[in-house]
């Protein structure tokens, strides 16, 4: 074991980088398993994960749905709920990471010959698995209130991938909040505020038409809008004429913009989380 680690030491040859990358993925996978056990064992964790999407579907479909177009609105709505649930999924990353940081366990991880990236990767990956489960439950609720996949299976699969990628990107934003919050209390209060404006100042649930200009501009370029629009298009769910969509580039090419913005979010937040995490644990 020690001979292997010795040869691996901080040499930046390509093969070494590749081996280090593979090892980080492997450790991320091991930690994903650990986090999944937590999901199953922390009381209320599964319930929150599953009740939340049901609640959103029921609230939006029947509280707003009646005024906004009934059956037609519910077909339109579901893509927005899918996008929103990917945003809210980030809260699990925030709280989970803050929780680990508050306990001694991260100190133990830091003393292992393991990349710090693996710890965050394990967290965001397990939250992605949870996110997929949330999507399934949300879809079942949607089916119950009259929503259907109206496009091809291939397009539906693509919609699913767009959502998962977006959810993964949001999870890294959540991780950033988690490492800055440090304590669970802060993470659970201040750390979750951003979820609301991000998911609601969008075209996920309503038209941006009647918003004040700054909000309308934000909504038009908000990745949440693009993800919702992309998913809506791919699932073949029509947009009611009463809910006109902004005519920006982002929403004319919603799938491309959704993917690009997700990748951009990852490019910004991955290094940010890592830098902060290293600082935190180096004292």
């Amino acid at each position, binding site marked *: 074991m020690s001979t292997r680690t010795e040869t691996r030491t901080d040499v930046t040859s390509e093969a070494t980088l590749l081996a280090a990358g593979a090892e980080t993925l492997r450790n991320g996978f091991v930690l994903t398993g650990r986090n999944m056990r937590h999901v199953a064992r922390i009381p209320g964790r599964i319930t929150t994960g599953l009740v939340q999407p049901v609640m959103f579907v029921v609230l939006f479909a029947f509280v707003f749905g009646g005024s906004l177009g009934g059956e037609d609105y519910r077909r339109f709505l579901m893509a927005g709920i899918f996008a929103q649930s990917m945003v809210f999924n980030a809260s699990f990353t925030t709280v989970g990471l803050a929780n680990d940081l508050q306990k*001694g366990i991260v100190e133990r991880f830091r003393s292992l010959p393991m990349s710090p990236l693996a710890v965050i990767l394990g967290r965001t990956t397990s939250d992605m698995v949870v996110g997929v489960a949330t999507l399934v439950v949300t879809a079942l609720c949607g089916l119950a209130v009259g929503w259907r996949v109206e496009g091809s299976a291939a397009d539906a699969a693509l919609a699913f991938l767009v959502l998962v990628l977006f959810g993964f990107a949001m999870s890294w934003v959540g991780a950033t909040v988690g490492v800055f919050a440090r304590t669970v209390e802060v993470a659970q209060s201040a750390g979750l505020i951003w979820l609301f404006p991000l998911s609601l100042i969008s075209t996920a649930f309503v038209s941006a038409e009647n918003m004040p200009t700054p909000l309308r501009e934000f909504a038009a370029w908000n990745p949440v809008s693009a993800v919702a629009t992309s998913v809506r298009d791919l699932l073949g769910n029509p947009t009611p004429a009463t809910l006109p969509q902004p005519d920006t580039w982002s929403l004319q090419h919603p799938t491309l913009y959704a993917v690009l913005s997700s990748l951009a979010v990852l490019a910004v937040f991955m290094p940010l989380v890592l830098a902060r995490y290293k600082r935190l644990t180096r004292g």
Partner: protein
Amino acid sequence: MPEHRAAPLRPALRATGLRKRFGDHQVLDGVDLEVAPGSVHALLGPNGAGKTTTVRIVCGLLRADEGRAEIAGHDVVAHSRAARGALGLSGQYAAVDEHLTGFENLHLLGRLYGMSRRRAAERAEELLDRFRLDDVAGRRAGLYSGGMRRRLDLAGALVARPQVVVLDEPTTGLDPRSRLDMWAVIEDLLLDGVAVLLTTQYLEEADRLADLITVIDRGVVIARGSAEELKERVQGATLALQVRDGAGLAHAARALGAVGLGEPWVDHRTGRASIATDRGPEVMAELLAHLARVEVELVDLGLHRSSLDDVFLALTGHGAETTTDGDPV
């Protein structure tokens, strides 16, 4: 690890000239340490002396401003992965995952050290047996007692058969029975040739476990030696007294100074004072003669062979703060 036996004379852990400043506060000001394989080196010092900072630097968790540390010959900064591969750390707060069972905790660590599932499972079983946790292996660590958690944490540090084990206050907060258990476990480690660096506030712990003791205070090494050597340094015995009225303490301290060696140690809160001496019981009569002239009323007077506590007082001018957080057994 056999490949490292090639250089048997090399200390398993070596730190030289560690300096660390947090803001205006010089926490470490040139600390050197070496730990030989199969030995325990205790780092002793009051709260805030720099023990934990030293440990964190040695383990590569914190960067020193100056100086370097090596584990099994690997620089902890330049070759951190190799250094960590040879290191097991058991921190001040048991770093166990409360939601995982004892077995799962150790299995997880084995996997993160790169073991196969099977190998990690075997190693976890071995360690659970050895640390008498096999009965509770399937129970979540969150339900463990304090002593069990510490043992699990230490077992976690040993998963990858490290050459160096660093124990940061391994028995702080444990009940006496659990502390004795922990000591037995640490003594057992030495049979494997592991080098142990131990920090403690408990002098008795250092006395019992350590081959070598380094006393640090305010970031500086103020003494080093075996427990016996350190005790000899305070000249064999301590003459101690307690006055009834605080006003007499200054007189009493002067009297102690007149008959003992060096400066007396004085605690105004308890009215106690003491001084080192190399003389026999006749020194007490001489002290009483001094005190009779100034009318100081004593509650207690005694002459006893120096304990590590006295060494500590003599060296640092203040206690090891054992009394503030519970008695050391």
